[in-house]
Each structure stands twice: as C-alpha cells, then as structure tokens.
C-alpha cells in the first residue's frame, strides 16, 4: 500500500475510476489544463483526453445543470466545485433537479453524478474559501452526502459515489488535504456509503464528528485520556446515516458530544442530537452537547482559530458532560 496525502488519494481514485469505466468523466473549473487548483484531477486530461476531463466555462449552475443532461446521455459526470462557497450557485440545480429527476422519471432514468468540493476552514484564505455547507446538501431529498477524514476513505468514498446510482455530494476537508500521508489501498478501493468508522474505541463518552473534526476529536480524546475513555465516531456518510453505529456508541457511553465546523443553528449536528433525543433518550446520562462554529459569517482568518471548534472547546464540553 502506498502512503498518500488525502488529495493524492483522491487523484489516485480518479485514475482508477476513469480507467475502470469509460462513462466516467470529470468536469469543472480548471480541472483539466491545471489539474485542479488543489491538483485533485492532475494527469486526467493527459491520460483520458480533454473530453473526459473538461475545463468548463466559469458557471457552477451550468456545470451541474449540464451534468444532469450528461447523465441522460449515459455519462457519469463528476463535477468539481472549486471551493465550498462557490457551490452555492449550483444549489438551485441540486435541489430542483438533481435530487428530483430520478423521481420525476418514475425511476426510469438514473442520475449517477457526483459533486465534490474542497470544504471547511482554517486555511488562511480570503472570505468564502472556508464554508461548511453540508447541512444544505443533507437536507435536500434525493442526494447522498459523504465526507472523508482519511486519505483511504477519501479514495474509497469517491469510488463508492462514482459507482452509486444516485447523486452523491462529497465534501473534502481541504484543511487535511496535505497534513499526513497514510496508507491507501492501491487499485480498486471502495468504502461503502452509509457505514460509519469507529476512529477510536472508548467507554465513557462519544465524540461524533466527520471531516477535519475527526483528527481534532482524536487529539481531544488524547487530552482527556487520563480522566476518561473517549470514543470517536467518524460518520463518513452523513446521508444515508449509519444510525446503528451512532445509537450503539451512545448506548455504550451514554454521553455524546457532537463536533461540527459549520454554524450551529440547524447544522447537521442538530440532526444527530435529534436522533439521540428520539431514540437514545433512556441511554443518555446527560445532555447532548454540540461544539460548532458560531452563527456568524465565517470570519477573517486572523480570528478563524477562535471560530473553529478547538481541542480546548471539545475538551471543555466533554468535561462538563462527564461532570454532569
């Protein structure tokens, strides 16, 4: 197995999937000649030709809208949105069509497209390069949503999304695109959608997270190691959600802290808490806590560290819950 950065694993995944299936194509802004602003699509245009790795005009709604039509012509397009906040122009196509067209055809046609984007904060960039828009996507019927936290999962979830018959949105935590090289299976590698990963076992408290918040929670678990045995659950797929894994961990530890970068109000963490409040109420030894970004525009980067959930904030919440 090779040791790769997350973004290298994604690129590897693309090479495998485009070689495996001729109907897979990649499209987006600067994915071709430049190989993507993060190099996720590097080498694809050279290897598979410019019609399977397309530099599109600068129009996100046009990218996703034409992708719908490409599906109708038998393609499996993978659309890159250059950054999280630049995916908002495609929300209309996503909500109005991508999530409904299979339904609209009475199941007659499939729309196996993928929308992927680097997302999340703390990268010291100008505004609108740091958003965590997962809640918009998860709330939209007809689309699935995955968020990897390791290079291997980034490759495996991309493969699963490309092979899935339904539209899948993949949010890639750009903060950890190049933080650590870890082992990634070579060639075919699929991580099924809908299966969470127990990043760390524990018995006293569960930290539920996804994306860049997973390694953060692992650090928080280390910090708490002396006082408590902390479990870290990496959801990996937000929709369909691995409810069994969530409820099993809550039943085991009885204490849950949810960690998310996005603003708190109506964020995805609320859904996790709501599921626990409905289905785990008798298992809970205390309140369900959320450590999240604040309900404000993502800040200028000089103060972004204070906006982001930190080890300190997670530890603080965990201690409050343990002492409850």
């Amino acid at each position, binding site marked *: 197995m090779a040791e790769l950065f997350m973004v290298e694993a994604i690129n590897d995944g693309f090479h495998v999937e485009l070689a495996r299936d001729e109907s897979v194509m990649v499209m987006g802004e600067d994915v071709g000649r430049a190989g993507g602003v993060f190099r996720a699509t590097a080498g694809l245009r050279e290897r598979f030709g410019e019609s399977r790795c397309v530099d599109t005009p600068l129009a996100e*709604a*046009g990218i996703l809208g*034409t992708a719908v039509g490409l599906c109708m012509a038998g393609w499996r397009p993978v659309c890159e949105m250059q950054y999280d906040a630049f995916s908002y122009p495609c929300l209309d196509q996503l909500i109005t069509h991508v999530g409904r067209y299979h339904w609209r055809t009475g199941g007659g046609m499939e729309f196996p497209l993928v929308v992927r984007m680097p997302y999340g904060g703390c990268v010291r960039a100008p505004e609108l390069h740091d958003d965590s828009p997962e809640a918009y996507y998860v709330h939209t019927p007809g689309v699935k949503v995955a968020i990897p936290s390791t290079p291997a999962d980034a490759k495996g979830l991309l493969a699963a999304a490309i092979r899935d018959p339904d539209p899948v949105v993949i949010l890639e935590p750009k903060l950890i695109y190049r933080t650590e090289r870890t082992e990634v299976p070579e060639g075919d590698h699929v991580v099924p959608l*809908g299966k969470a990963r127990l990043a760390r076992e524990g018995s006293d408290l569960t930290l539920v997270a996804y994306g860049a918040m997973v390694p953060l929670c692992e650090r928080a678990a280390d910090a708490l190691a002396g006082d408590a045995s902390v479990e870290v659950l990496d959801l990996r797929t937000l929709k369909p959600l691995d409810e069994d894994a969530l409820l099993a961990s809550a039943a085991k530890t009885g204490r849950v802290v949810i960690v998310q970068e996005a603003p708190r109000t109506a964020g995805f963490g609320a859904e996790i808490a709501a599921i626990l409040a409905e289905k785990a109420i008798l298992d809970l030894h205390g309140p369900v806590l959320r450590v999240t970004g604040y309900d404000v525009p993502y800040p200028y980067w000089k103060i972004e560290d204070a906006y982001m959930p930190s080890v300190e904030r997670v530890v603080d919440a965990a201690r409050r819950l343990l002492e409850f």
Partner: protein
Amino acid sequence: MAIAQDQPDLRRVIDEEREVEGLGEQELIELYRRLVLLRTYDERSLVYHRQGRIGTYAIFWNHEAMQAGSVFALEDRDWVFPSYRESAIGLLRGIPASTILHWWRGHPAGWWNPAEHNVASIAVPIATHVPHAAGLAWGKKLKGEDAVAIAYFGDGATSEGAFHEGANFAAVMGAPLILFCNNNQWAISTPVAAQTRAETLAAKAAGYGMPGIRVDGTDVLAVYEATREAAERARSGGGPTFVEALSYRAAPHATADDPRAYIDMERVERERENECVGRYERYLRRLGVLGDDLVEEVKAEALDVMKRGIAEAEAEPEPDVGLLFEHAYANPPASFERDLAELRRILGGSVG
C-alpha cells in the same frame, strides 16, 4: 450610441404563399393532424379543468404551430425538452394522452421515462432545463451519436441565469442544440418590453457566438423550416442555434390567471382571429390539399384521442401511498421502510 444589430426579418411561409421544399401533401396533412391534436388537447383540458377533472392547467392555445412545426423537423432520436407550456408535446412522440392528463391531475401515473420517447420531463421551473438539454446534446456528441436536442422556453426565461449558462455551455461545447424561444410576449403579467431592452431576443445569440433566427411562431411551416435548418446545422457539427419564434399569448397564462387586469383584450381578440391552426387550415385549403371531410375526420380523430385519454386516466386507481417512498433514490435508505410501515399503520393500511 447603440450597437447596430443584425436583424433577420421574421421568417414567413404562409403569408408569402410559399411552399416548403421537401414537404409533400402527406406531410402537410400529417402536420395538420398534429396541430389539431394539440389544439384539441388544449381545448379539452380547459373543459376538464372547469369540470374539476384535472388541476391547474397551463393553456397553450395559439402555441401549437411552434410545437408541432419544430418537432416535425426532428428525427425520433432527437431529444425534446419541454416546459409546462409544451406539456402535451409528448403526444407527438407517442406518449399517451392519459399520461399527460395524469401529470395535470397530480397523479404519479403522469411520470414517464424520458428515454422511452426522447422527451424529457415537463420543466416546471423556468429555464433550468436549458442546461439539461445542452448537457444531453453535448453528451450525445461525445458518444458519437448524431442526436440533436431542442429546449423550449419562453421570452421571460431569457432573463434567467440558467438560460445564459446553458446557452453558453452549448456554444462552447459545440453541442447539437436548438434553443427554441417561444416569445409569446408575456411572462404571466410581465410584457417582454419589461423583460429586456434588446431589440429582439434573437440578438442574444451573438453574445454566445451562435446564429439567431427569427420566425413567425404562428406560421407552422416557417417554424418547421427554421427548425430544420437549425437541426441540420447541429447534426453536421455546426453547434447550437437560437430560434426566436414570435407569437402572442392569446389566452390566460394558466387556468388560475385572469389577464384582464394587465392585457389589452382587444389585442388578444385580434390575435385570436389570426390563430395558428386556422391560418394553416386556410393555407391548406387554398393549396387544395384539405377539404371539409378531412377536416372533420382529423378533428373527430383528435377528439377521440382525448375522450379515450381522459377515460383511461379516470379509470386509473388512486395511487398507493407507497409511491411516496419510491424513486426518491435508486437505492433508498433503510428509514423509508420504517416510515412507510408507520404511515400504513396510522392510515389503517389505506389512504383515505
């Protein structure tokens, strides 16, 4: 200072008493059949609506020439992307009247599989289907299939970003697409003059580097000729064409709309007198290829299609609530079964 614009005159055939090369008597009559079928669908639908047998309905009276004329210029392998204004255009591709009536009755039997007829689902939102058509046409080209796509949208739709992005993608990708703009001069209560300052909608074509053609949208032969030209260009690698078909919305926007508040009803009356089906009928009579008997036969035939259609639709049982959970996903989440089981329990197993 205004940019001098190339203003192709409105293309006309009927007023010029021209004949369209390639169209024999048989084709001319087949075209008439299609016009009458659409007209009958529309007029009957209005009746069915008043009778409470279908729901809100978007009237396309006097738009038939644009729809029948353009589809007649295409091959069956070519894809049609209708808006709600072309809701019945599938009739011209073998979609049963009952299916389309179901769509307006809010019945899931109104679903069809676009791949079976090369007719996309009816677009309710404005303009967002234009990129779909561009993508399909581009995708067919990439696969080396010589199918063309046509997207129907209105004058108001040209104001939407989705129209712009779809048109530009089509041009950049050299997609075999016909952008068919039904310029009926109104977007509900908004006149086209409040929609754009362009001298013509076809003037937008230059901004995408594609040809723009203007045609009399109530002249079915002019529409046919213009669409055929655009289709030939598309098929031979010439890329997309913008066709502006000028007509007039001589009926309410939809059954819920009362245009008297905003439209000059005398103008409407004048337009109604010159409506597109009658114009063509008179032309064929002048040519001597159409007589009273055939007219009667064609109209009876169309009426029969509708009577059978509504009867079939009304014979269809009420849909089962299980359909709620079908087709949202090709492979649905486990939660759907639980939700449906609970719902059936509460409904006592039947939808009241």
